[in-house]
């Protein structure tokens, strides 16, 4: 799979034109700052997911729970390329996306535990959270469904003549869905401002890409016949992602139509909490963790560039741990939704 070598992309990162920028919770405001913000957000996502895994093991989180560990660089790098008002939509592996969008870890964790303080008041769960305020449009549990939905967000932007861009994340498993190509066709035909981000983590649940795909070239080439260009990106390198993301978003915003980014990535955990991941070897996972881990790579670069010293790193780790602990406490203390909530929010009255 062709991967573009990451250029040092800071200079090309487009700063938002409007102010104020995305809230301090998100990483939108760090687009052109430095690795440090990327690092903080990636670490927040990882620690958050590890904690979610623990709470699941304790029986505090139920149902399906899909962790994002290993793929953090993608949402963090992509989010840095967005401006206020740009929209994000993704699948059910969505915790990292929400944190990167600047959603409050407390609200996300409390939704995982099914509590009143969750983003959906406990009625959505791990796979279904939204934030109008942060322009995060879910959280969708049907493989591939978010692709036409996100294309529709792009359609709405163009309809209103607004220069917002919609970013649609989907996995390698969804790439085979018919509705993905139905969407590519319309996005190409109508020149919609949509960046399609394929998170290719090599496995659709327990089946490797090679086993279910008639492959010729990269997945980023699947838009070619719809007139949609794309490129492969090292999804384990946050700077490479940010650089490619900024270019893609910029051209989209300039009216040059949709674009596809295929992020070459890897998930360390199983498909969901109940997946023992026997379809791959422990060595395979260990190898990736050792050589390609996005957070380690980021840390190493920060050190090389003299951006942080060990004491600062310790401080950061401590602060993030505290924040995640706070979210976990909140998620356990927040009460279950009141029983009246059973019948609310079915219709807008």
């Amino acid at each position: 799979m062709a991967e573009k070598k990451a250029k040092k992309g800071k200079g090309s990162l487009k700063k938002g034109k409007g102010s104020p920028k995305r809230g301090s919770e998100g990483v939108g405001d760090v687009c052109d700052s430095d690795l440090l913000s990327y690092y903080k957000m990636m670490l927040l996502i990882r620690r958050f997911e590890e904690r979610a895994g623990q709470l699941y093991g304790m029986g505090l989180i139920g149902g399906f729970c899909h962790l994002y560990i290993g793929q953090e660089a993608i949402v963090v790098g992509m989010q840095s390329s967005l401006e206020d008002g740009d929209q994000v939509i993704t699948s059910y592996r969505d915790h990292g996306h929400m944190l990167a969008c600047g959603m409050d870890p407390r609200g996300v964790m409390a939704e995982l535990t099914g509590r009143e303080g969750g983003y959906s008041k406990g009625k959505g769960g791990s796979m279904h959270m939204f934030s109008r305020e942060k322009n995060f449009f879910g959280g969708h549990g049907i493989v591939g469904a978010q692709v036409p939905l996100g294309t529709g967000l792009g359609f709405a932007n163009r309809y209103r003549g607004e220069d917002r861009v919609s970013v649609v994340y989907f996995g390698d498993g969804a790439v085979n869905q018919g509705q993905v190509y139905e969407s590519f066709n319309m996005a190409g035909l109508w020149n919609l401002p949509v960046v399609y981000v394929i998170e290719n983590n090599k496995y659709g649940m327990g089946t490797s890409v090679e086993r279910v795909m008639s492959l010729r070239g990269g997945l980023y080439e699947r838009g070619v016949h719809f007139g949609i260009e794309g490129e492969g990106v090292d999804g384990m390198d946050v700077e490479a992602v940010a650089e490619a993301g900024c270019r893609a978003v910029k051209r989209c915003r300039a009216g040059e139509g949709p674009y596809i980014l295929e992020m070459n990535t890897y998930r360390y955990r199983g498909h969901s909490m109940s997946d023992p991941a026997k379809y791959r070897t422990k060595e395979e996972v260990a190898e990736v963790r050792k050589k390609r881990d996005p957070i380690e790579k980021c840390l190493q670069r920060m050190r090389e560039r003299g951006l942080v010293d060990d004491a600062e790193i310790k401080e950061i780790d401590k602060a993030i741990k505290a924040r995640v602990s706070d979210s976990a406490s909140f998620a356990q203390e927040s009460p279950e939704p009141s029983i009246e909530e059973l019948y609310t929010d079915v219709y807008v009255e």
Partner: protein
Amino acid sequence: MAIEILMPALSPTMTEGTLSRWLVKEGDEVKGGDVVAEIETDKATMEVESVDDGVVGRLEVEAGKEGVKVNSRIAILLEEGEGSEVLDGYSSGSVNGGVQVVAGVVRKEEEVVEWESGVVGGDAATVEDAGEWEGETKMVSVREALRDAMAEEMRRDGDVFLMGEEVGQYQGAYKVSQGLLEEFGERRVIDTPITESGFAGLGVGAAYGGLRPIVEFMTFNFAMQAIDHILNSAAKTLYMSGGQMSVPIVFRGPNGAASRVAAQHSQCYASWYAHCPGLKVVSPYSGSDAKGLLKSAIRDMNPVVFLENELLYGQEFEVPSGEGSEDYVVPLGKARVVRQGSDVTITAFSRMVGVALAAALELSEQEGIEAEVIDLRSLRPLDRAAILGSLAKTNRLVSVEEGWSFAGIGSEIAGIVMEEGFDDLDAPVMRVSGKDVPLPYAANLESLALPRTEDVVRAAKKVCYREL
């Protein structure tokens, strides 16, 4: 013997049409397959081909003539060697048993079906067409009423737009969107590829983004490709988001059996969609309801499935017009009593309201049974109060629907009546429905498979304990 060219039918129910122009004149030589004339209905212009070689002996209908009856002779073709004296044997107007064939212009089947529909069996006179409207009215087809509803709402709100297959340049597969492209342009009247899942999903996404899409399905049969987005992406999102994300969108198009289009194109989806919380489901009968309900649906903040009926498109009703009529809306969730009666309640929706009214008339005239007919109009929310109120008066209930009875709308009504109106029942509820088979193509079987007036009459007599 000369060859007679007869006025062709463009659909099984067409009875007459306009001969818009001749492409040949008397004395012209024609070959089989040559186009000799154009005929039109309000939906389409079609070409008439000659089926044989010959010389045009006589054109019997002037170009531009309207109301030319199907199977009446429009021209006579002389065969080789025949002279014009042969024409003397053909008195004008009477058909001697000639040959005719309509042009074989190959198009999609949806397009060639122009159901003039005529009288579906209803006694339209008993319908209070314009509901509570007290202003001016005019006779308008359901097709135009739907178009007017969309046009008015699009004028009112710039976020409303229409998308679907053939809605723009083609003017709608059933001509419901006629004129909209001209008025609103390509930005707001959008022709889509034939990819229901994709464009329905895109429409839902546009609603997430704050717009108010009207998604037209050429028929609801094709919406099965998109049902995931209708349910999972539209209906459930408000709940799943804890009330943050409303999805104001209308999915509309013809539902149910048309005529002779067989099993895959003839299904009623009322109970499928009505099953689902988060959706509103509407299925009008009259023109004023079609217009008033569609306007309400477009203004509603929830996803609405709007089930039309192809056979009703050409039917005309009194519809509010003139001053203030653009504000005439019909609330969702309210049924309407379209015929008062004391002996038995008949519930129906969409085209079946016509069947129920016809049955009511027959019951009154032949049996002395006065049926109260309720047009449900909305299936979710269902107007329980109207049903139970009528039951309290008549103590008997027959439900009529075109779809299958298993887990159908009638089953739901029977359940409600059992749970909430048991003491009012003097007889078991009867369900009249489509037969439990995929819809057959053969005309006789198709007719048997769909609810007929006599089925409703029989059911009503049965709950009144009359001899069958």
